[in-house]
């Protein structure tokens, strides 16, 4: 019973006394990596990672999360979204543990210039889980 959306909810008792309920999202994290930090120009590279979340003590993993992958070519430039896809539970990519569920994900890229990538699962206002963003992963182009 609510409030059950992430945020801060003040209230008044008896029209006089103030109180506040702070609602936090459940744990969620995402990682992004690859086998190497350097490739030749235009060669294929698989980005991959894990999406881990608190499954609220359910004995199964069922949630589907929209994963966004961003890239930028130069430091200081804004990231651009290069992919958006749902990460779903499947026998081949899922692991359920005491602390929650982990899904594996992958994305093939062919960088032509040195590029920094990151992955994000955004939290919507009604979301049960908090927003998650990976550490940036830089791929350099070698001659």
């Amino acid at each position, binding site marked *: 019973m609510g409030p059950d959306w992430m945020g801060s909810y003040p209230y008044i008792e008896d029209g006089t006394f103030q*109180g506040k309920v702070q609602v936090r999202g459940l744990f969620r994290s995402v990682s992004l990596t690859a086998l190497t930090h350097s490739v030749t120009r235009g060669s294929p590279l698989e980005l991959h990672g894990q999406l881990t979340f608190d499954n609220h003590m359910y004995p199964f993993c069922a949630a589907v999360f929209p994963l966004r992958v961003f890239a930028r070519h130069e430091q200081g430039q804004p990231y651009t979204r290069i992919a958006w896809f749902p990460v779903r539970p499947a026998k081949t990519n899922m692991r359920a543990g005491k602390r929650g569920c982990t899904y594996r994900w992958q994305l093939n890229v062919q960088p032509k210039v040195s590029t920094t990538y990151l992955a994000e699962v955004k939290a919507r206002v009604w979301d049960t889980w908090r927003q998650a963003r990976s550490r940036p992963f830089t791929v350099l182009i070698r001659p």
Partner: protein
Amino acid sequence: MKWVTVALTASGPAPKTVTKSTVDSLEFVNNDSVAHTVNFQGWHCSLDVQPGATGACHNDGPRLDG
């Protein structure tokens, strides 16, 4: 999931600030001898909790500006 409890007293809620997760439930307990009211500002919830009773919001959703 767990229950997060706030006591309604003559000197205000105790504790004044509580933190819960999105899946936890919140309840207001009135152990006082008079009724107490609770009115949320950012959530559609108003409660009138009688002495010895427990009140809870029923997920009516956030109160949106505009």
